[in-house]
């Protein structure tokens, strides 16, 4: 899952990157509001962690601008001020959630999961598709109650496709959610991941749409 981190503090930014990477987030980090808006205009992010105390344009302004520009991406605000007005201002400016510094890693992860769940229109924490069940909390996948072990990027591809069932996702769309700016992208890496997923899950869920991309069909009940 592609995440944009907007944090001017070197130490906290680094720590957040270290913390989020193992949890299947692809974290791209910018240190000011201007760069955050530029990145959003250029690429697709599924979630934003936004610090309020930024130099120059502060977090509130960034938030207002990106909502004016019709970006609907979920935003989690990080604030060091516990005054009520800050929270209210943040939420009213279009934030989806906020966290007061210092925060607990588990709480941060839970809130991020809740945000992507809401963005995908789910109320339950699990992703179910037929006999396939995914628990985002501990990133476990099972089929017919048999655990399946997926690599980090394989897991990310599967989630991305499952959250967009019935829609064909282009190769670029999938790659954008898999790789950050600092990652080297192999030209056939995506094919390799898809191949591995197909091998590990007993039924073939992923359909290749030639010349367009990949999709998982919507389930009909």
């Amino acid at each position, binding site marked *: 899952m592609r995440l944009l981190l907007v944090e*001017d*503090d*070197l*130490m*906290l*930014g*680094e*720590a*957040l990157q*270290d*913390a989020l990477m*193992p949890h299947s987030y692809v974290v791209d980090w910018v*240190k*000011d509001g201007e760069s955050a808006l530029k990145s959003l205009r250029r690429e697709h992010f599924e979630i934003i962690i936004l610090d309020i*105390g*930024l*130099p*120059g344009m502060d977090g509130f302004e960034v938030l207002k601008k990106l909502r004016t520009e019709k970006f609907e991406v979920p935003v989690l605000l*990080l604030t*060091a*001020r*516990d*005054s009520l007005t800050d929270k209210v201002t943040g939420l009213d400016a279009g934030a989806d959630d906020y966290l*007061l*510094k*210092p*925060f*607990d*890693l*588990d709480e941060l992860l839970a809130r991020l999961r809740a945000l992507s769940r809401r963005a995908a229109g789910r109320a339950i924490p699990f992703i179910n598709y037929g006999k396939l069940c995914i628990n985002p909390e501990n990133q476990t996948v099972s089929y017919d109650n048999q655990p399946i072990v997926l690599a980090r990027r394989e897991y990310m591809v599967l989630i991305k496709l499952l959250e967009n069932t019935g829609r064909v996702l282009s190769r670029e769309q999938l790659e954008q959610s898999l790789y950050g700016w600092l990652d080297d992208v192999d030209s056939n890496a995506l094919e390799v991941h898809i191949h591995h997923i197909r091998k590990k899950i007993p039924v073939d869920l992923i359909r290749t749409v030639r010349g367009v991309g990949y999709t998982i069909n919507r389930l009909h009940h």
Partner: protein
Amino acid sequence: MSIRRFLLAGLLGTLLLSFAVIFFFNRYQAFVEVGELYDAQLAQSSRILQGFLNRPTDEIDFDHINNALLAATQSYSENEVHDDASMRSDSGHKYEYKFAIQIWDKNTNLLVKSPSAPLYAIADFKNGYSIKKIGKFNWHIFTQHLPSNGYWIVTAERADIRQEIIDKLTYSSLAGPLAGMIFLALGVIAVVTKGLQPLIDLSQQIRERNIDKLEPLVLEKTPKELIPLGQAVNLLMEQVSQDVERERRFLGDIAHELRTPLAAMKLNAQNGLYSKDIYSVQNFLIKIVRGVDRSIRLIEQLLTLARLDPRALGEPEICVLGDIAQEVINALSPQQQSGVHIYLEKSLFNTQLNAYPDLLSVMLRNLIENACRYSPEGGTINLAAEQTADNIIFTLTDQGPGVSEQQLQSLGKRFFRERPADRMGSGLGLSIVARIAELHHAQVSFSNAVPQGLVVNILFPVIHTNGNS
């Protein structure tokens, strides 16, 4: 002290005093006038008798006079109390017993006597007015000698009649003023109360204010005498609310600056806990230690800023900028200096400054550390001073990246970093410099050097001791 009580006591007291003066004046006036009138009446009665008596003795029927007097005062009693209606009758008035007449011949035989008069002489045989106590009462007496036949005519009148008239006159003349006074007193109370109401309203408004509610007083209905007071209070409240706002913002900034490294440290600690290999655990521990160091530095800087209290400074001394700068540089760790050359120009050692040496040292340390932090490896920091007629100008130039024109304005504000967060500053260094400059009445300005670097100028005023300015 209460203005209301003072005004009421003063005004009502004055009113009472004037009333007393009027009362005594009226009474005295009545006393004089009534006395004159009655004395004249005594004399006139005597003169009428004189007219009758001024002829040979055998022609006067004294018994006839005595009977007439007796008949007129038939039924009197000294101690009876009468109302006005029953005292008057067709034949006379019961008050007649309060008048007395005696007529004596030249051998002091009593010829005529009114029933109210005693048998002895009421007065000495001497012409004129006198007062004498007879029985229970004082009498006003007029004595007249008739030279033709040697008779003495004594007419007398009880003093209490006069007193009664005086009392009645004074009391009736005072009834009007008294009623007026009561209205006046009520008026005074109402006016004082009404007049002081704006003051009470204003204090009520002030009482409603507190540290969270410092909006200006509403002075629309306030009388113009109180407006300067209200305006002064408003000015004070504006200053206080600005101070409170600044403190609040500062606390918010501190919260931000303290919580951010804490958040990073906590994340790193949890990252370490979730790591499976010892190498990455160590890596996270190193990051935590860096976070702790940063927090320590921040807290030290905060304490330095808090200690810059003008009341605790003592007296300024003559300082040589070069000496202080040299001490600061000697105390820098190689890590802090990070391979930067610091060059002190000679001018620094020729410049003397009346200042607080400890503060100057803190100031120079912050400036030099700051310059080191942003200088490229192997760069140079240049420190110089220049003396003009009115100022001593201290200049520090580094070869760092400088700042944008827009950021030049924000330098010196609390928690503003020149290059956001890419270096490990506390964001307080330049605000400490600014505060120390302020305590020396010096001005700090920043500009960009050519081709690159930041120039810090501090303009110290020279205090002339010979009276020129």
